């Protein structure tokens, strides 16, 4: 993966930059030792690494503002970092950048049940937001699978999703306001405890901008009352087509499950060998979960099972109790681990129109044979967000490149059928060079205008999202 050439002039000024940062931060908040900065050399896209010039760990909005003002004045690029769980390389440093980590800013600032929001510092982890309110019967809905570790700051940067977005939406639908620090140190309040913007919806474009428009230090998040209960049903089919039709029929019947998860045969086999969840051996498996009181769940599941039966399932298993529900989810939740036990894997994240599901799975199977790399498919079937896991051997020369080429072909296929490159992980560096597949230059130009306005010098996370040749003239400013 190409990254911009390191600016030697900035590296040469490292002592002055570090000294300026030390003036506005406590000693333990500025990391510049060559061995210590290695802790920040990559995120969860571990194939690519580069130690930053320095890393800072501020504790407040004022400290973030001071850091950015200094970097702005000194012309130093800044890469914001939440918990470093990005699968797309969103927090990958360059050798001439300062990493701005928000991990120490993890406080709950305000909990307001009558108005149903929580205000937190952005370094707080996703799951601990729910942790702060669940004893009182509330939860924070977006649930990316890294939710134990990932930070709200990164969730906002990538507009993260999760398994339950069919009903609850993604981050942008659950974000009410942010405190944003611009690259020049200006602190702005955008949105708040009230709904919607009086003018342009700046909050909407900040969410998902991958840390390129500003650093979010605080967030107002919508919290929801917990449903009374939830229950899954598992169904197996002897073809992907039939499973796809069943999903479509459930949705057309007017039911909105909170989750519809799909696994194909390679994934079922790997999962079964690893987790022994007792899944049926079949071509396609669906887990459909509904929420509500016992009576409501019974009503919805009866209808779902009636629809499933019309498609001749090879297996139909309703969870009778909590233990059986856990077993149904066990395999799905261990799918990534199971694939990882077989080999290294790359997790893709394209979205397709649900109607293209059988065609896309068939094509992925053909490509798998052409490339000679195995692939298993886990899939948020209700919303079309695919997660093909391509297996490769990182120690075998050329295998990573082969896997990346295969992955790129799958993503091009997603765009070709009317979908997109990334449903919830973000572009980062991983899909940066594929942006031209989905967007014309004019489309990217309009997006880059937004960055021009928020960060005219293009110092914030500049080497991400857009192809380097497209941003070259701007980054040179």
């Amino acid at each position, binding site marked *: 993966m190409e990254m911009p050439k390191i600016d030697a002039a900035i590296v040469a000024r490292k002592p002055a930059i570090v000294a300026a940062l030390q003036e506005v931060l406590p000693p333990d908040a500025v990391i510049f030792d060559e061995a210590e900065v290695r802790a920040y050399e990559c995120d969860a896209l571990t194939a690519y690494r580069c130690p930053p010039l320095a890393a800072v760990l501020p504790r407040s909005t004022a400290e973030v503002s001071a850091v950015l003002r200094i970097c702005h004045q000194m012309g130093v690029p800044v890469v914001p970092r939440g918990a470093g769980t990005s699968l797309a390389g969103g927090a990958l440093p360059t050798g001439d950048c300062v990493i701005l980590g928000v991990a120490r800013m993890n406080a709950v600032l305000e909990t307001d*049940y*009558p*108005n149903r929001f929580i205000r937190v510092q952005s370094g707080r982890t996703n799951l601990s937001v729910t942790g702060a309110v669940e004893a009182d019967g*509330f939860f924070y809905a977006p649930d990316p699978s890294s939710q134990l570790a990932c930070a709200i700051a990164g969730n906002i940067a*990538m507009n993260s999703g999760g398994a339950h977005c069919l009903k609850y*939406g*993604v981050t942008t639908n659950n974000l009410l306001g942010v405190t944003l620090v611009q690259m020049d140190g*200006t602190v*702005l309040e*955008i949105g*708040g*405890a*009230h*709904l*919607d913007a*009086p*003018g*342009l*919806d*700046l909050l*909407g*474009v900040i*969410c*998902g*901008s991958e840390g390129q428009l500003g650093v979010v230090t605080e967030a107002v998040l919508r919290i929801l*009352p917990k*449903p*009374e209960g939830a229950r899954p049903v598992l169904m197996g089919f002897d073809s992907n087509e039939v499973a796809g039709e069943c999903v*479509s029929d459930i*949705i057309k019947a*007017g*039911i909105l499950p909170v989750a519809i998860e799909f696994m194909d045969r390679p994934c079922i086999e790997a999962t079964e060998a690893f987790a022994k969840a007792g899944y049926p051996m079949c071509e396609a498996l669906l887990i459909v979960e509904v929420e*509500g*009181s016992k009576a409501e769940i019974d*009503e919805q599941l009866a209808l779902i099972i009636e629809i499933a039966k019309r498609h001749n399932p090879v297996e139909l298993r309703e969870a009778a109790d909590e233990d059986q529900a856990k077993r149904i989810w066990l395999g799905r939740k261990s799918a990534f681990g199971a694939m990882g036990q077989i080999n290294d894997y790359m997790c893709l994240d394209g*979205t397709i*129109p*649900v109607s293209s599901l059988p065609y896309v799975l068939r094509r992925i199977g053909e490509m798998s044979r052409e490339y000679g790399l195995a692939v298993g498919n886990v899939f948020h079937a209700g*919303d*079309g*967000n695919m997660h093909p896991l391509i297996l490769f051997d990182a120690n075998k020369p050329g295998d990573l490149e082969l896997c990346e080429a295969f992955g790129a072909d799958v993503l091009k296929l997603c765009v070709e059928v*009317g*979908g*997109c490159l*990334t*449903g*919830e*992980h973000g*572009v980062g560096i991983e899909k940066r060079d594929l*942006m031209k597949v989905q*967007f014309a230059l*004019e*489309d*990217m130009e*309009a997006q880059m*205008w937004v*960055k*021009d*306005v928020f960060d005219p010098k293009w110092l914030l996370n500049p080497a991400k*999202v857009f192809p380097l040749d497209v941003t070259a003239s701007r980054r040179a400013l």
Partner: protein
Amino acid sequence: MKPANELELAEAIRAATGPVRIVGGGTRRVGPPPAGALLETGGLAGISLYEPGALTLVAAAGTPLAEVEAVLAEGGQRLPFEVPDLRGLLGREGVSTIGGVVAANASGPRRIQAGACRDSLIGVRFVDGAGTIVKNGGRVMKNVTGYDLVKLMAGSCGTLGVLTEVAFKVLPRPEAEATLTRGGLDPVAAVAAMSQALGSPFEVTGAAYVAGQVRLRMEGMAGSVAYRQGALAKLLGAGWDVVEAAQSAALWQEIRDVTPFVGQPGAVWRLSVKPSDMPQVLALLTEAQTLCDWGGGLIWARVPDAGDAQAASLRGLLAQIGGHASLLRASAEVLATVPALHPEAPGVAALTRGLRAKFDPRGLFSAQE
């Protein structure tokens, strides 16, 4: 000008030499028509894609809202955000277009549960001020590829470009609805009841307060609605009545369209605040007729149409407690001195100005405010 397709529209923008006045159905405009050459979007019409099994609909911006709603109804689905029909309130005639709905981010009572128009919008195509066709988002509901200009365009009132196509995530139309009502409540008791209901697990999809009466709506499968209405009534205590089906729907159409204000004189404010601040705002509005939606977070107020129509006191309070106030209807004299849109904080206003200058470098859309 009434271009017949996107290319003609782009050509018309490129050829424009001065301000352009973009009109969909002309049903949501605030104040008198702005100056500028008329550009009608009605020629760009038609639903190009509707996949009920994928909960997706794509339509040209000039497609009448009624057509979109009828097609969805046939598929047993609907736009989730309950589009208000403000023709009565604003004294307009004409046919509301789906592009106009998006440009205004027009969202009704279900906004608190299903989100605003911007939350259901998954893709746009538009023509910017240079006449360039731009696309963003697409037709799938989970998409984080590049910046989300879809949100930026929703509610931008035509200041950044002319919408040509919009794509939505739609939702099933529920088979049943019911509303719990209770009269004789003061604002403090009303907001407490609405907060308690919205904080319960019974999925309230509407919470309004009008003429002393609180209304709480539930929608879904028949058995579920029956269960939730009983459970919620039990939670709230004695004094609640149940209204079902068409009668319930009529109660919400009244809230959605602000019907109690229709045909009444006066200036009309629309305020968005933190729900628990509602009583404080109503205390300022002693001479006003009011209607509250969104659990108390949305306040409609009809005030005497003179002087500053209470702009100074309302916006002064909001400066302390947060929120915004827009003047949706007023005489030309009042609008001459009071900005219809809530003034933005200086830093935010600078970003807005910057974005408008990028998307519309010649200032063609400056009249759309």
